[in-house]
Each structure stands twice: as structure tokens, then as C-alpha cells.
């Protein structure tokens, strides 16, 4: 196969990748889009194998990896999606690093002149450091999302902060760029600066992610998604492979846009999220004004209110994911619908630990997606809703967001407080991620139902007859 033919096949694969993403504009076209993506990937791999020599050797490696991937894809729980995605980001990052090392080792394998031109070395430097940061950062994100914080403090979902953190990060970033400059100014195979640069990048990836707390994870995971794309694009530059550049850029911009959407949904700047430590300082100040009274009730009381309502809106949050209550919620909703109640779900963009987390959980429980509404589509309806049921969500329904001077002022929220009756299920009165008290809990029309979301909802199901 000539280089031109190869490039044209790569073009076909690139177009199929674009179609795969385009399909995600609606659940109806999404599955066909995913098929396009698979075809694109198959084309890319087959034509590349056609120009390589040791096909059997490569297929063995691919088969091992492929079996692991297929096994995980079949077995993973939907509540574990955030950690799976983080783990997959780390693999892309590591693959980029390994390829970069192989390029330094023998550029001729990739059709790059040996010794490598300065331009290729610059591109290689960029691709490999982004890959390294993606790898170690994603490993930390994985640990935080998988709840490994109890075993290793590095993975703590609370922000890990220490004095001089930002200055240390800055110094490391400068050192990394310094080694990079040394790498692309050096003659021949400059292993020492290259290895030093990679080592610093791995450390930097860890340090960037540890100060970021649990509820900011939607931003972090989108950001790492973006990085993994840029790493692929960077490798594409150094190998002069347009398909890798296109695919990498698509993924890079996708992650960047998701990060932007998540930041906007929290009314926080990207920089402030990345600097981390949010919620750690304010956590202590907000509590202590315990004069206010809350009204709490049993699951049976709540079920009575729900069954006698005309319209119910369910607001799921991270607590629902932790308790794996999605199936119980679906069952309850079905019972209510059978009684003629209008049941809808309201999803805040940052509910859960990754973009779209709640939607996937509800879809898993076979909740029809016509019942599931995004924030801007349902916020106008709370005023005419009889009962809002908040399940394990807190900051996203905190009316303090409307009050000037509060830490979350300006954050768009689900306006649950406008409903006639509000039911809130939480495990305790503990403050949410932002460390703020939530006036919603003290309103006269609010009834708290304490307990694990799954247990409480199951009790409600029993009580609705």
C-alpha cells in the first residue's frame, strides 16, 4: 500500500470518528454513530497492520488488551463509570508515553529522519509530557473516584493540600519545560533530559489532581479526557499522522467543552477548580448555627405525600449513586405513575461525579428518557409542582446560590424550594461539598427523611399502595 492510499484510508477513518460524535446529538442516532466509530477504528487498525511486518506479534498484544477491555466493558457497574473512564484516560496517556520513548529509541521505524529534526523533537516533547501528566493524573482521579482514599491518603476524595503547593507545581512545570528545551536542543538521542522531563511530568500529574475534591471530579475527569486527546494529537504531530491529529483534536476539544460546561454549572472558574482546596477551608465556619429546626419524617410519611400528589419531580444526586438506589427509584416512580401521578426527573449538570452520570444511572434502571429533564428545561416547572423528592443531592438545590455573598452565589441551581412540598433524603445533616448549610432543609414545607437512599426508597415503595 502506498503512503497516499494509507493517508486516504486514514481520512475515511477520521470522517467516521466525526460521525460517531455527531450521532450523540440524540439517543436515537447515537448507537449508529457508535457503529461508525467502530468501523473507523477497524479501518485504521487494519490498514496500519497491512504496512507493518510483525502482524502476529502485534495481534497477540492487541488480543490480550482487547479481552481485558471487553471483559471490563461487560462487567462494569454503571455506578462505576466515572472510575472506569478515569482508568481508560490513564491508558491513553501511558500509550502515548511508550510510543514517544519508542520514537526516541528509533525514529526511522516511524519514517522520521534519524537524527530527529528539531520540529519532531518539539512535538514529541509536547505529546509525551501531556501523556505523562494524563497518566499519573488519571491514576489519582481513578483512586479518588473508586474510594481508595481510606487505604492511601493520596487518593483521598477530600482535597490534599499543603503549603507552597502552587509554587512547587510552578517550579516543577518550569523544570519540565527546561528539560524539554534541553531535549530538543541536544544532538542525537538525548535520553537524559527526555527521561528527566518524563519523571517530572509524572510527578506533576499527581500534584495537579490531589488538591481537587470529590464534587469537582466532573471538571477533573473532563479535563483529563481533554488531555488524553491532546496527547494523541501531539503524538500525531511527531509521527506526521493526520488521522491521529484529527482524532486527538476531536477528543481534546470535547473534553475542553465538557470542562467548560461543568465549571459554568458550578459558577466557578476553571482556574479556581484546578487550584483546588474548595470546601476544605469553609467547611468549619458554616456549621454551628444549629438553632434552626428541621422537620423529619419516616419513609411512610413521605410515601403518603408522594402518592397523593398530582406532580412529582425527583432530583437525584451523588447519594443516589453511592446507595445504588436507581432501580428502587424507578420502581417507586412506576407505582406513582400507575396511580396517575406525573413523575419527572430533574438533572443538574454537575450531579454525580462525571458529566451525564445521573442520566446513565436512570437509563440503566430503564427510566424512559422522556421523563428525564435537564436543568433549564424543568426549572420553570417547580413552582407548579406538588412534591419534589431530593435524593442525595445538596449543593445543587441550595437556595443560598441566589444570595449575594454566599460561597456558591451565582451557581445555577434546581429551584426545588419553589415546589409546594419538598422531601429531602440524606444520610445526615452534614453540609454538602461546598461546606455550606442548606436553608432548603429548614423551610416549613420541607420534610427530611434520613437514611440510606436505597433503603428509604424501598420503604417508600412498600408504603405506596
Amino acid at each position, binding site marked *: 500500500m502506498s503512503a497516499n492510499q494509507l493517508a486516504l484510508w486514514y481520512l475515511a477513518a477520521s470522517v467516521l470518528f466525526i460521525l460517531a460524535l455527531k450521532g450523540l446529538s440524540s439517543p436515537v442516532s447515537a448507537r449508529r454513530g457508535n457503529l461508525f466509530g467502530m468501523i473507523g477504528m477497524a479501518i485504521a487498525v487494519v490498514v496500519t497492520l497491512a504496512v*507493518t511486518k510483525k502482524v502476529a506479534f502485534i495481534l497477540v498484544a492487541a488480543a490480550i488488551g482487547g479481552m481485558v477491555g471487553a471483559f471490563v466493558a461487560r462487567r462494569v457497574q454503571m455506578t462505576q463509570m466515572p472510575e472506569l473512564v478515569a482508568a481508560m484516560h490513564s491508558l491513553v496517556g501511558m500509550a502515548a508515553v*511508550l510510543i514517544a520513548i519508542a520514537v526516541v529509541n528509533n525514529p526511522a521505524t516511524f519514517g522520521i529522519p534519524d537524527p530527529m529534526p528539531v520540529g519532531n523533537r518539539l512535538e514529541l516533547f509536547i505529546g509525551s509530557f501531556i501523556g505523562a501528566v494524563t497518566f499519573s493524573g488519571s491514576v489519582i482521579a481513578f483512586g479518588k473516584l473508586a474510594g481508595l482514599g481510606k487505604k492511601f491518603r493520596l487518593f483521598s476524595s477530600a482535597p490534599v493540600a499543603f503549603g507552597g503547593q502552587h509554587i512547587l507545581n510552578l517550579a516543577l512545570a518550569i523544570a519540565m519545560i527546561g528539560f524539554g528545551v534541553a531535549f530538543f536542543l541536544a544532538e542525537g538521542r538525548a535520553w537524559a533530559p527526555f527521561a528527566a522531563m518524563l519523571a517530572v511530568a509524572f510527578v506533576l500529574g499527581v500534584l495537579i489532581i490531589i488538591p481537587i475534591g470529590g464534587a469537582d471530579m466532573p471538571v477533573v475527569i473532563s479535563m483529563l479526557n481533554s488531555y488524553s486527546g491532546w496527547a494523541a494529537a501531539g*503524538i500525531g504531530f511527531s509521527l506526521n499522522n493526520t488521522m491521529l491529529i484529527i482524532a486527538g483534536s476531536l477528543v481534546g476539544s470535547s473534553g475542553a467543552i465538557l470542562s467548560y460546561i461543568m465549571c459554568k454549572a458550578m459558577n466557578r472558574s476553571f482556574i479556581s477548580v484546578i487550584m483546588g482546596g474548595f470546601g476544605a477551608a469553609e467547611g468549619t465556619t458554616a456549621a454551628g448555627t444549629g438553632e434552626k429546626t428541621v422537620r423529619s419524617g419516616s419513609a411512610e410519611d413521605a410515601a403518603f405525600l408522594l402518592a397523593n400528589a398530582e406532580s412529582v419531580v425527583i432530583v437525584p444526586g451523588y447519594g443516589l449513586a453511592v446507595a445504588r438506589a436507581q432501580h428502587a427509584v424507578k420502581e417507586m416512580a412506576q407505582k406513582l405513575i400507575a396511580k396517575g401521578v406525573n413523575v419527572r426527573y430533574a438533572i443538574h449538570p454537575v450531579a454525580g461525579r462525571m458529566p451525564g452520570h445521573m442520566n446513565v444511572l436512570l437509563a440503566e434502571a430503564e427510566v424512559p428518557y422522556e421523563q428525564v429533564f435537564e436543568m433549564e428545561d424543568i426549572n420553570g416547572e417547580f413552582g407548579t409542582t406538588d412534591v419534589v423528592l431530593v435524593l442525595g443531592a445538596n449543593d445543587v438545590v441550595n437556595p443560598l446560590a441566589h444570595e449575594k455573598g454566599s460561597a456558591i452565589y451565582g451557581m445555577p441551581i434546581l429551584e426545588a424550594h419553589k415546589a409546594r412540598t419538598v422531601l429531602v433524603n440524606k444520610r445526615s445533616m452534614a453540609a454538602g461539598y461546598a461546606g455550606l448549610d442548606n436553608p432548603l432543609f429548614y423551610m416549613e414545607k420541607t420534610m427530611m427523611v434520613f437514611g440510606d437512599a436505597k433503603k428509604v426508597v424501598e420503604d417508600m415503595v412498600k408504603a405506596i399502595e
Partner: protein
Amino acid sequence: MTGTIDPTVINLVVFVLAVFVGYHVIWNVTPALHTPLMSVTNAISSVIIVGAILAAGPYETDFGSILGAVAVGLAAVNVFGGFLVTQRMLGMFKKKAPKAEKEKA
């Protein structure tokens, strides 16, 4: 104005245009499908497997080609895992009456 265009310049042209395409395509993705978007972009970025195949490809097995083979394995986890888990998730986004469909199947 003589001579050929440096490949890096062509790469840059492709890169900038691809970022624009990505920008416009991604804004059209419905928020409900943001998790499948992340898993499918994961699968797509693992097209880096192409670079890994080239690294593992040469006749004589050396340090570089072993790293290449490891990279092939890692990227293959994502290729299969990413697309299959996306397919599984998308299969869950159904319209009304999923029960009836199940009984038919």
C-alpha cells in the same frame, strides 16, 4: 515563494480545522449523553494504537518494539472497552415501554 510545504505546517492546518470541527460537533451533543460521549472519546483517542503498531512493527525485536507492543495492549483495552461500554450504555437509553420490547425479544 518556492519549495515544498513543511509537513509540520500541513499538520498544523489539519489540527486547527479539526479543533473547529470538534468544537461544533460537541456542542450539539445532548447533555443526557455526556457519559457515553466521554467513553466514546476515550475509544477514539485510543486510535493512538496506530502509533503503537508502528512502534511494535519492525523485524528485529528491540527495546522500542517491546514498548510498542505494550502500548498496543494498553490501547487495545481502550479500543474494545471504550466502544463496547458505550454500546452497552447507549442500549439503555430507550423510549417508553421497555418491558414490552423485552418480552418480544
